[in-house]
């Protein structure tokens, strides 16, 4: 006999892949992301009685994860940014060469966004949350989320458009390497 409501347990398990993807986008590291997910699960089960059945379980879990990340972030800052990008490390399939290079440009641009913009963009554009849900998760106004998403999209658009034209970004070495690979 399980300690936990089996339905709830299944729903939590079903949310894990999304929690990981979100955690990677926050932390920039697969290892830290998995630690974050683990802490989130522990926290969720310890506080399961504070979850109101029928409300949005994924949003509840995302909120826990985000709060954990934020408090940890405040303590340690982002001391060891993953230089090669966590998402790149998780890639299981390599698309064709051109698409892959596009993808690299995109990933580099995404990592340059301020973290509040990046998380808003990921929640709405990839996790599939509504603006309202994303606002709940980030504990801010819906208008703030909309503004962050718009700024994120605009900034990415500028970086990628610039990139098409010439060079961009702070890391000339990376750019040079990518450019070399391209030829």
């Amino acid at each position, binding site marked *: 006999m*399980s300690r936990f*409501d089996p339905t709830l347990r299944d729903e939590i398990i079903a949310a894990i892949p999304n929690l990981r993807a979100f955690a990677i986008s926050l932390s920039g590291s697969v290892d830290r992301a998995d630690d974050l997910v683990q802490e989130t699960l522990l926290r969720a089960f310890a506080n399961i009685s504070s979850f109101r059945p029928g409300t949005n379980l994924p949003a509840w879990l995302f909120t826990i994860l985000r709060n954990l990340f934020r408090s940890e972030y405040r303590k340690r800052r982002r001391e060891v940014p993953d230089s090669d990008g966590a998402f790149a490390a998780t890639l299981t399939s390599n698309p064709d060469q051109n698409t892959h290079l596009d993808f690299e440009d995109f990933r580099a641009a995404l990592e340059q966004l301020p973290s509040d913009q990046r998380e808003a963009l990921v929640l709405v554009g990839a996790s599939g949350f509504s603006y309202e849900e994303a606002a709940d998760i980030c504990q801010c106004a819906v208008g703030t989320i909309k503004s962050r998403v718009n700024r994120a999209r605009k900034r990415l658009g500028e970086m990628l458009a610039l990139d098409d034209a010439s060079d961009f970004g702070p890391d000339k070495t990376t750019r040079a390497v990518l450019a070399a690979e391209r030829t």
Partner: protein
Amino acid sequence: MSDDQSESASAMADGPSSPLGDGKGTVLGSDIQAKIGQHLRAMYDDVVRQGVPDRFMDLLSKLDKADPTSGEGGGRK
């Protein structure tokens, strides 16, 4: 942590096709925006497709068997 607010200054297109914009003209080019959406989801879905790593299933079984008195009363309702 947010940066400058000058976003409206250089808005170039209306971006009516942007699924995420709110029609305020903050979108650059719809093809670039479409590409951003695709890349974002591709990156994210690639992680999602990896499913649930074993360490989390192990953790859940341990939690399930743990002594309920150490928690807040379990999930009974």
